[in-house]
């Protein structure tokens, strides 16, 4: 099954964090020969030792020089640009005909700029950011939002299938990155509205635990209301692993897209201000759940059930 002499393309993987490590592991298990790199070189060395038919590179240029498809999973689009353009970056080692598959949550306009530069070098780009977070990466159940030319997308489809459960091809290069930030912008607004609604209700005398149960059964229900309130707020844990600053980044990308396309979005614009204020108050590294604690400060209401935390009502 896993033959090292297969004619599968050679894959370079750059960015071995909480997402990149399990994603590259799935590719290796599917038989792809890998060359891996991270700015923390010990991560690459360690992973290469664990996986078969995998080597560690010491620079992005070295990855590019020996790869048909280069996968990036990096904190943001600026970092992707650095990895491409640095002196020992991907561009320095790139072979014509290679393809860059950027699974990071990058800015769509940076991705489009990269695609132009890559085209000039006889290479192509597919953007395929993910939803599903760390758990989805580990269990290969990520959802990929894909932008790129049809032929390029077909070229990377087998890789995406190894790492995820769903692949949505949205359009040309940048379309996946646009979709990713817009999904998160909706998520962020849902959480903000929910926090305000719970604050007003709690002040009025409603039990926020009962409110959450009712909302989850009603038209106000959402992924956020079902996974975040009982689980991370009412128990005062405020511990969602997704970082508040990354949400603010995605909202910022969405708002920049709105500006570039000339679409007035007053609710999201206002939400952006509030999220930014929350990020300033919470400081770097804070959990996205801290947004609710900030709403508590703004409203002067602690969203806490007098009866203490409990499991959500069965649905």
């Amino acid at each position, binding site marked *: 099954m896993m033959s090292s002499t297969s004619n599968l393309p050679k894959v370079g993987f750059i960015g071995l964090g909480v997402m990149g490590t399990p994603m590259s592991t799935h590719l290796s298990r599917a038989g792809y020969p890998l060359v891996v790199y991270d700015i923390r070189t010990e991560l690459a060395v360690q992973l290469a030792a664990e996986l078969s038919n995998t080597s560690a590179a010491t620079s992005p240029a070295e990855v590019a020089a020996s790869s048909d498809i280069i996968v990036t999973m990096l904190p943001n689009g600026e970092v992707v640009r650095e990895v491409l353009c640095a002196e020992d970056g991907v561009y320095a080692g790139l072979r014509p005909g290679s393809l860059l598959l950027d699974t990071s949550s990058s800015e*769509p306009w940076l991705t489009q700029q990269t695609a132009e530069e890559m085209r000039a070098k006889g290479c192509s780009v597919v953007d395929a950011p993910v*939803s599903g977070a760390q758990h989805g990466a580990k269990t290969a159940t990520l*959802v990929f*939002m894909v932008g790129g030319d049809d032929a390029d997308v077909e070229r990377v489809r087998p890789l995406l299938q190894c790492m995820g459960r*769903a692949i*949505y091809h*949205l*359009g*040309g290069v940048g*379309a996946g990155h*646009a*979709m990713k930030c*817009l*999904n*998160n*912008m*909706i*998520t962020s*607004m*849902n959480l903000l*509205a*929910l926090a*305000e*609604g719970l*604050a*007003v*209700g709690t*002040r*009025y*005398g*409603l*039990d926020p635990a*009962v*409110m959450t*149960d*009712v*909302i989850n*059964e*009603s*038209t*106000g*229900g*959402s*992924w956020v*209301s079902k996974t975040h309130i009982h689980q991370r707020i009412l128990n005062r844990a405020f511990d969602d692993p997704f970082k508040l600053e990354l949400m603010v980044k995605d909202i910022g990308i*969405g708002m920049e*897209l*709105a500006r570039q*396309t000339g*679409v*007035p*979005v*007053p*609710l*999201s614009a*206002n939400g952006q201000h*509030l999220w930014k204020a929350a990020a300033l108050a919470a400081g770097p590294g804070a959990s996205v759940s801290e947004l609710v604690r900030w709403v508590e400060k703004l*409203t*002067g*209401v602690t969203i806490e059930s007098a009866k203490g935390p409990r499991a959500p009502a069965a649905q």
Partner: protein
Amino acid sequence: MSAVLQVAFIGLGNMGTPMVINLRRAGFPVKVYDRDPARMQALAEQHGAVPCADWPSLAAGTDVVITMLPTGKDVADVLLHDRGGLAAHLAKGAVVVDMSSSEPLGTRELAAQLARRGLGMVDAPVSGAVQGAIAGTLSIMAGADDPAHIDRVMPLFVAMGKRVFRTGASGTGHAMKALNNFVAAAAYAATAEALMIGTRFGLDDALMVEIINASTGRSFNSEVVFASQVVTRQFKTGFAMGLMTKDVGIASQLGEALKVNAPVSRLVAQRWEEACKARGPGVDQCTAILAWQEQA
């Protein structure tokens, strides 16, 4: 105590009419009142409800009054003001159940006034819209200062609804209803804004909604309203723009009255007012995106 509850039902609109039909099917004797005699007549002929034109006949022998009216002010008018008010004619111990989407601070006041006359009050707004009213599957959010009043009317709730949430003291049902609709309206507006940006960028709206529904952005609105009503251009949720605008306004004003600084609720209320003004209160609420697109 096992005597069948005698019901007086006021307000025979899109919601009230099917609710009366379900009460009749469950075997409850129901007197009905509406300003429009034709509505009373239809329920009398087809479902055996008893039409009443004045308060004394409506109140005689009545254990429970159910109101299903456009606003809390209409409810207070019927009970306290119009022709001296129905409350003056009710026997002590009767319970008023307001299933309208009323303003919660007004409900507290009404409950206190009724209590002084020896009358009970339950606020019990519903979610589930017209389809839920017809199918008898409404979700009911019940608040009351005396929980025994909810126990007493529970057989009526069972006839009209599927699920009853006890939300706390008087007014909490109404507060819950308005706040749920605010959260829903915010999710609708956020989803609409993202679709407006995305489609302008070149994304397909149906595909966007499909992905949102597989991702963290999903909500009742994205899964039901956008997927089946907005991208399909059906625009039929059965919930009027004017009613959604009213509910979001109640939620926002509740925050103001309680001195809770909730800026998103103010802006959501304003956005729905704009949509309501542009398209009219009678259109389906899920057409709000069309009004906002016209501004773009």
